[in-house]
């Protein structure tokens, strides 16, 4: 990971921004010291713990209510996705990537397709890039809404989750309209997207976008005025930018530590270079700051989708490249060339050049990287998926130690982890 720079132009509210030293100090102050005469109670949190996120298992030593040591254990949901990918053509891998993180499945599709396109050197048509951006931001909104509900539930308020699910439903309905699927979209294709925007999509989307910001600010009112939540979420799980760099924690958790690193800005892809948006950054590095980052990101996502709808270019949604791109079904039925192309893509696969490529995208939960090694055949020789959740899981050790039992699940949830993505 490239070292994130600390010296950005200071915003107007510099006074509020803690320096790295202050954060270090605050971290040391909020964590409970390990006592010499500790009596350790070892418990296994997860995979059967009802509130542990996914099937994560952590063997935790408690001294009273304080966490002394954490031994995270992943792999309970290992499905061999990477190995499986070696026996599938690049087109066939796309549905597999859905299953990595089933809450943000389009982001995984997108990341994989960006990686393969980088390997091929394929130029994606402008319309496809805009549709991808819309779908990616829709994923971000629905993922953050789900996260928000679960996160508040981690602190004991059960009702909020249901409210967030209600709003998430709007995004799910939009996805259903866009690609027919609600959860595992498989919407991205190498060289473009599977379908064009359906009729009436833009109008319905605008309706939902007009509605969502009011709801999001309603949540903010509900949460930011709740003293118990503020007391619980502030100054716990402090994870400074250097910790993030050391443990490769990315995404909202990194931005909450004051690092303005967002791959949509730093290594732009899709239509992001042509879109104006702010990278949400907070400086407190605690659980509350991560919550703030996500709330602001949702507002930014709404702006991005609006801009994409306004500036949506006309044109094809798939690149013209017979060697690598699956043609649209309606062309296959009409033209002989497209039919041959379809036959070759299905039975042989894309003619990807030999080489090695790494490409990462900013998914809602962090930086997701695909490392593809190709030997020139239609199937990857090796596919490695650097999922953010894996690194977030390993960061539980420094993040939990010295915290209290009550906050363990809340802190874990604040970095947004999906074990399907972690274990692959």
């Amino acid at each position, binding site marked *: 990971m490239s070292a994130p720079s600390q010296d950005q132009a200071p915003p107007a509210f510099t006074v509020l921004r803690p320096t790295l030293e202050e954060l270090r100090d605050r971290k040391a102050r909020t964590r409970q010291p390990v006592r010499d005469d500790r009596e350790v*109670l*070892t*418990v296994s949190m997860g995979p059967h*713990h*009802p*509130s542990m996120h996914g099937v994560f298992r952590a063997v935790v030593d*408690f001294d009273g*209510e304080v966490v002394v040591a954490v031994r995270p254990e992943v792999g309970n949901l290992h499905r061999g996705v990477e190995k499986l990918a070696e026996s599938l053509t690049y087109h066939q891998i796309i549905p597999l990537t859905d299953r990595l993180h089933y809450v943000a499945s389009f982001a995984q599709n997108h990341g994989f397709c960006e990686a393969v396109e980088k390997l091929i050197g394929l130029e994606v048509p402008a319309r496809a890039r805009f549709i991808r951006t819309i779908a990616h931001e829709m994923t971000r909104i629905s993922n953050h809404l789900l996260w928000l509900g679960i996160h*508040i*539930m*981690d*602190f*004991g*308020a*059960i*009702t909020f989750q*249901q*409210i967030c699910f*209600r709003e998430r439903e709007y995004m799910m309905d939009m996805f259903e309209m866009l690609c027919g699927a609600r959860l595992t979209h498989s919407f991205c294709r190498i060289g473009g997207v599977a379908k064009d925007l359906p009729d009436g999509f833009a109008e319905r989307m605008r309706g939902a976008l007009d509605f969502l910001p009011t709801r999001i600010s309603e949540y903010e009112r509900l949460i930011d005025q*709740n003293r*118990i*939540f503020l*007391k*619980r979420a502030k100054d716990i799980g402090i994870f400074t930018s250097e910790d993030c760099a050391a443990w490769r924690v990315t995404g909202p958790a990194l931005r909450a530590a004051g690092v303005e690193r967002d791959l949509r800005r730093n290594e732009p892809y899709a239509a992001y270079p042509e879109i104006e948006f702010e990278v949400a950054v907070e400086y407190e590095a605690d659980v509350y700051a991560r919550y703030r980052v996500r709330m602001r990101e949702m507002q930014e996502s709404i702006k991005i989708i609006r801009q994409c709808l306004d500036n949506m270019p006309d044109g094809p949604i798939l690149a013209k490249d017979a060697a690598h791109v699956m043609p649209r079904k309606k062309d296959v039925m009409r033209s002989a060339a497209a039919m041959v192309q379809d036959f070759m893509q299905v039975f042989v696969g894309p003619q990807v050049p030999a080489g090695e490529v790494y490409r990462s995208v900013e998914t809602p939960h962090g930086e997701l990287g695909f490392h593809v090694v190709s030997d020139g055949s239609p199937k990857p020789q090796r596919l490695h998926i650097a999922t953010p959740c894996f690194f977030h899981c390993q960061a539980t050790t420094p993040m939990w130690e010295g915290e*209290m*039992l*009550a*906050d*363990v*699940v*809340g802190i874990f949830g604040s970095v947004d982890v999906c074990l399907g993505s972690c274990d692959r």
Partner: protein
Amino acid sequence: MTQLIFLVIKGCIVFFFCVGLAAMLIWGERKFAGFMQSRLGPTYAGPGGVLQTFGDLAKLLRKEDLTPDWVDKPVYKIAPYLLWVPAALSMSVIPFGPLDAKIFAWRTDLVIANFDAGVVLFLAMGSLAIYGIVFAGWASNSRWSLMGAIRSGAQMISYELPMGFALVGVMILAGSMNLVEIVDTQSGNFWNWYWLPQLVGFVIFFIASIAELNRTPFDLPEAEQELVAGFMTEYSGMRWGIFMFAEYVNMIVMSAIMATFFLGGWKAPFEAWNVVPGFVWLILKIMFFIFLYMWIRWTIPRYRYNQLMDLGWKVLMPLAFVNLVVTALVVVI
């Protein structure tokens, strides 16, 4: 002799009132949660799902009474009852109506036990209830249960004190520890009740009662997000059901106590409305507090352990002291 028969009948009525209301409250809470979370709650069993609790009961009774090998069997088995039987006993001091009331041809006191140490009985029984939780946690021999039990012990001790002190304010004003007399002194319209002169005590008692009942935001002994199910992690079948049931019985008792001490017991809010029998008003007041408990439970998050202790010892306790001293001074002067 007739008095003894009356005593048995009154005892049965109050007991079945508690149990029946608790069963309805389980359904009510689920409906309320459904309302809060924009869903329906139980709908299938009976009209609006009212029979849901009885369906659950039948299911739980049919389940195997699973007792793990490693538990301390006698203690493990008795713990669920210890949680709610003492609490239900303190219903005996709650007056449901006036003394020497006329019911058809007979005259009787509408209270089971009319004696001077009613408050002491309630506080003693409230303290006994903690044994249920601690025994359950300890006898289960499970780490989650143990942590839940330890938390519960600390929490109950911390909140029993402000609760007791909040009641002392009322006792000073009423000049009695007999619940019948405490209700009698709250005559007149609703602004003559003790909630107004003892507003601080009322709020303290309400907050402390939530902690005593282990409900959100103080449900640390059974915090699902932290301790799986806390002290009842190892329980299953009907024994687990009794724990759930006990929560509602305790809620009824606590609400009845609060209604008696601060909201005039069985008295109507306006004197003219006293034509309606007293027990109706008492039940309405109980339902009011239970509504507040449910509302709070489904709205706000949980406190952390150290914050709970801070609130108990640093806020409620000094406030209760000040309230007590001020009340005493005002009464003396």
